[in-house]
């Protein structure tokens, strides 16, 4: 069965050049809406009215976007009378609320960062995108990022999903089993604000209501490159995106 060896070789190197060079292959990121100027305040309010999760905040003639709440339904992109502009970037990770003085993990973690992933009620998209970091295109191993099966050897707790009631205790136990120093990263709109599930009888409405979150990777789901950016930012290898104002909604 040596044909597997040749089969693998014949496909050549598929890994992205990111973070050394930017990645621009079509379809690596869905992009995201950004603040857009309209000609009048009326139009920006009409644009905001289309958003099902009130993530578009009209401020005069411009429509701002609360990226933590955005669920990427694309209603402000296609079909609406007043579409917003969308960018094609993927470096979205910001610090969480109240963590403005966030300190990255020390330099010694840069080539050996062990990640514990906990699925706390995720729909499968964010989790799948995390899983794709191990595929040949992203190959997180080459950057010294490893996914570990045990919290005892983990440095970063990556949480996806809004924290369902039945997963709250397993999540807390995982966190408590991790050694310090440790960092918590919330991945996806559900893990940040609860997303479409919100806060309810079965959903805690985001990781920050049960654990002290350090970094947030917005997106629904964030593409693998956005998660990679977040993991690089944990050790300070990439700069964080600036945190937005909270639009009067405290976390």
């Amino acid at each position, binding site marked *: 069965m040596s044909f*597997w060896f040749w089969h693998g070789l014949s496909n050549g190197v*598929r890994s992205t050049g990111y973070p050394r060079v930017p990645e621009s292959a079509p*379809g690596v990121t869905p992009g995201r809406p950004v603040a857009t100027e309209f000609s009048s305040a009326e139009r920006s309010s009409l644009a905001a009215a289309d958003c099902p999760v009130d993530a578009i905040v009209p401020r005069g003639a411009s429509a701002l976007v609360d990226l933590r709440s955005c669920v990427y339904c694309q209603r402000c992109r296609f079909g609406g009378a007043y579409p917003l502009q969308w960018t094609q970037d993927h470096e979205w990770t910001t610090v969480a609320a109240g963590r403005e003085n966030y300190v990255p993990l020390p330099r010694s973690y840069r080539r050996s960062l062990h990640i514990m992933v906990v*699925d706390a009620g995720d729909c499968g*998209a964010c989790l799948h995108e*995390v899983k794709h970091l191990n595929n040949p295109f992203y190959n997180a191993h080459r950057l010294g990022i490893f996914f570990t099966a045990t919290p005892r050897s983990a440095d970063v707790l990556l949480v996806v999903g809004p924290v369902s009631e039945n997963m709250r205790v397993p999540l807390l136990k995982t966190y408590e089993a991790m050694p310090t120093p440790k960092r918590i990263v919330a991945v996806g709109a559900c893990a940040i604000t609860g997303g479409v599930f919100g806060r309810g009888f079965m959903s805690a409405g985001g990781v920050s209501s049960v654990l002290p979150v350090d970094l947030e990777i917005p997106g629904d789901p964030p593409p693998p490159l956005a998660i990679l950016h977040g993991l690089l930012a944990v050790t300070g290898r990439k700069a964080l995106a600036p945190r937005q104002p909270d639009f009067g909604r405290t976390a």
Partner: protein
Amino acid sequence: MSVVGSPLVPPERIDLDGLVAAIQERFSAVVSLSRADKGVLLSLHLKDPESLPPLSLFLYWEIGCSFGGLIVEEHSHAWQLRYLFLASGSGWIDIVLELPLGGRSVPSITAAVHAADWHEREAEDLFGLQFENHPRLGDFILHDQIWPEGAAPHRKPQRKSVDVHQTQLRRRPNPNWRPLLVVQDPGSFAMPVGPVYEGGIGESLHFILETVGEDVLRAAPRLFYKFRGVEKIAEGTRVSHALLLSERFAAKSSFAHSLAFSSAIEKICDVEVPPRAARLRVILAELERLRHHAGAITGICESTALSVAASQAAIIEEELLRASCHFTGHRYLFGLNKPGGLRRDFNSDGFRDLLNAVGRAVDELRILENRLHFTSSFLDRLEDVGVVDPNKARDLNLLGPVGRASGRCHDLRRECSYGGYGDYQFEVPRENEGDGYARLRVLFAEAAQSAKLIRQAVDSLQPGPISVPCEATHSGAALGWVEAPIGAALHWVRLDSSGLVERYRAITPSFNNWLGFHVAVEDFAFQDFPIILATFALSAAECDR
């Protein structure tokens, strides 16, 4: 259980008139029939709850219907229980049972139709209904170590017995809770797996594997760690918000679920989508199926530790994700469906790129299948492992590729056509061995058929509108269905007079197939467990909702 003339392979087509005649002959005293529409063709209204089990037995085993699911609705005056059955080739029929709100006791049909087991346990947990003679109730969705008895969180708020919102933060796990263990041999032990396992990059599931050493004697999946109460959250919301929920509770089949939800709303509003939208929906649904199957194949290769093949399959899947994103703007096809059609149209460049990507993926999958076919170390792990024989598959009503690998020919695209699938040429692959390798072959064959469907649908596209207005302004209920990548998904929606969602019920193929999963695991060795899990390709998010 004595089964009269049980058709192992149900008839290809069940004639509705013949069925009506047969029911009137046998059950005329207890059943009144009404022809209906809104997705369900025939309703059997039961006058006497006690005749529910014999009628279910008759429909499932003698007529050869397959089981759809149980829908519980709490109206202001009564409980309404709706048992869905599919008369193959004709359409959906349901048994409707009305009970006074005070009464909580319902005869269980689990002994007659095993596939109803989990549906009844779910209704017991969420609505507090008691199913008489059910073999095992309790500890299901609401885990007993954290939830008090009788919480019934899906009941209407004014009658809710426990205020779950208030107790949430004060609840503490009960340290004395122990799972139910069955194996009593000396030296037997239970091996817990999950809910956080597989390096974490697996979904949250818990299994209790009972063993005396090497072979798994009993496997009990304990799911619903991810239960988010989607059906309850949707209540009282606008249709546009419930649509977001329907496509976000299970991302691996999000388009299929939003399609089933949208088609239910379209039936309530008596709206037919334009031909172009119907064809675009076929393209997108088959694109999702192709991507899902590529992902499932990746999982199978990974589980056998065949890393080159796993990497190659992962490349195919990632390229399909990128093609989806390039084509639609979203890697998981979110935000495309809406009741009445689609949210956006695509241009010819988009179709050209999509067809190229799909063609490449199918070629790569064919190469991969050939190589796997000649990899004996790989086949050794799959052949004769995790066997579900056709009898069991029929018994447990297994759906989708898993059922079709065990001799079932259950595919809604054929049996209960929707969305214009009747216009296309495609095959429904079927195998009879029921082992892991049969499931893998079905996945490969279905991926090729999906690509064939995409090409036909793109070729048959005509310019035209992509949506019609579909605003619900009156009350009504309807059933929408779709053949999701892992089987039949049914969405029942009831709207109130102001067009808000009154009851939303999503019956998913994963929920159905998890029930049968233990059959495949039992009597196989521990090290086969992850492989069998991968060949089932089930989603916990889809099951838990």
